[in-house]
């Protein structure tokens, strides 16, 4: 009988010394659920948000109808989550990929055949990308049907449409990177279409391809656009988008 009792005591002593240490209390702000034990009270519920980085995303309280899954279908949040998932899997893929015409396809092939979890992570990246296009599109439809783009949220709708365009561009620039027949000819079709831009058609196409024809320069260009430029722009617009959601009074009211 003495064993478990002493063990609990030891455990509690350890917990107290860890939670009382300077390192621990410097990491977790007072009121964080990790600082000391959490017990459920309105005050602690507020502190969980106020004393964590989540306060940048969420207010302490939201309208009751805003937590209804049947209203938002979680589409905006899931789009953001897929973006995070794509960033994580994308960073993994970057370790094994060189954006040159001579190496790109071989790298992807080696990733699938000889890298641990390489095939799985590549699959996740690809399917999550298609899902993100779909979820962003559905999010836009949901917002439209709820009339949520109306005042005072007009400008956030504008940012949302820009984010939809950026999502398509992110997906399309990633499409070329495997450098297989599918990638090459899909991008050929897409860039030929953009080449018909009035007046500036040839210049637009030249800038996009980094030359007159698709080649290794195109691959490098689209790689940089895909892994740095568009994610960077997208993150900035997402930050404004989320900030505006709160500043415009939370998500749109009940119908």
């Amino acid at each position, binding site marked *: 009988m003495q064993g478990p009792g002493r063990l609990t005591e030891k455990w509690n002593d350890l917990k107290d010394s860890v939670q009382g240490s300077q390192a621990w209390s410097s990491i977790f702000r007072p009121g964080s659920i990790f600082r000391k034990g959490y017990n459920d009270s309105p005050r602690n519920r507020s502190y969980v948000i106020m004393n964590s980085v989540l306060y940048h995303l*969420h207010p302490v309280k939201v309208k009751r109808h805003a937590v209804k899954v049947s209203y938002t279908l979680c589409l905006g949040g899931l789009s953001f989550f897929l973006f995070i998932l794509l960033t994580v899997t994308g960073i993994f893929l970057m370790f094994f990929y060189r954006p040159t015409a001579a190496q790109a*396809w071989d790298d992807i092939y080696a990733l699938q055949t000889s890298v641990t979890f390489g095939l799985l992570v590549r699959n996740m990246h690809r*399917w999550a990308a298609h899902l993100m296009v779909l979820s962003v599109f559905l999010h836009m439809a949901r917002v439209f049907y709820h009339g949520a783009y109306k005042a005072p949220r007009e400008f956030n709708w504008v940012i949302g449409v820009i984010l939809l365009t950026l999502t398509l561009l992110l997906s399309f620039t990633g499409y070329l990177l495997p450098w297989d027949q599918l990638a090459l000819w899909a991008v050929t079709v897409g860039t030929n*279409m953009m080449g018909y831009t009035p007046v500036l058609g040839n210049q637009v196409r030249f800038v996009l391809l980094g030359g007159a*024809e698709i080649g290794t320069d195109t691959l490098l260009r689209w790689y940089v656009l895909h892994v740095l430029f568009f994610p960077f722009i997208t993150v900035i617009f997402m930050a404004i988008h989320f900030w505006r959601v709160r500043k415009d009074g939370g998500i749109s009211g009940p119908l």
Partner: protein
Amino acid sequence: MTEIPEHLLKRAQEAKEKAAAKKAQSSGDDGGAAEDSSSGESAGDSRIPAHLLERSKAAKARKSGGGDAEASSGGGGGTAVATKDSGAVAAPAGPPVGAGPGGHTQRLLTVVKSGSIQDVKAKPQDKVHVWPHLLVIEFVAALAMTAFVFIFSWLVNAPLLELANFNQTPNPSKAPWYFLGLQELLTMFHPMVAGVTIPGMGIFVLILAPYIDKNPSNKPEDRKFAIALMTVHLMFWAVLVIIGSFFRGPGFNFTLPWIDGLFFEL
């Protein structure tokens, strides 16, 4: 003249009646009142508790008794207070010096309604804590999405065709699925119209939607036209994408997927 809210008038009326009743009662036994109505101006004010009145009386007495020689000769605080409202001692129920016709010692100068100085915008709203109500939902949704992507990726491999070859154009060559609506339009219009003008205008009109749609209501029954227009557009693109994805075969000619098979890679 500012109109005085009804409830304030009512309250004033009640107070007046109460004061009148008290006056009538205290004039009946003025002998007993003389002892403790040393602070006569607040005797009618029942809102100040008796023990506080007592304490302030004692404090005043101590102050005047300790410092002032003239007051201490009087022997205690009672005189000090009494000098202040000697009228009250003489006739405890009578109106204090300088009181108004109704026996009031204060007047209502103005009524400041809430909202006239501070703009009260916020109406109280039914709100819930983000933790746990919203965060739990978000966490479950994220977890479910991860599980779905994980299992789907485990079962279905992403396509990796043979190495890019400039000399061998696959038939058909298709754009990514979200651009297949545009590619479908290419079969009907000049490339400049299908590839640039229509999508460009589409994005532009979409951006302008909140500035074009002036209807302030978000109720579906008030926005039948907007909803109908959007639904037609979404259906238009969905149908084009589906035709382009599944019903176009070699030479981008029309095929039936259940007869000729699929010509579609994600």
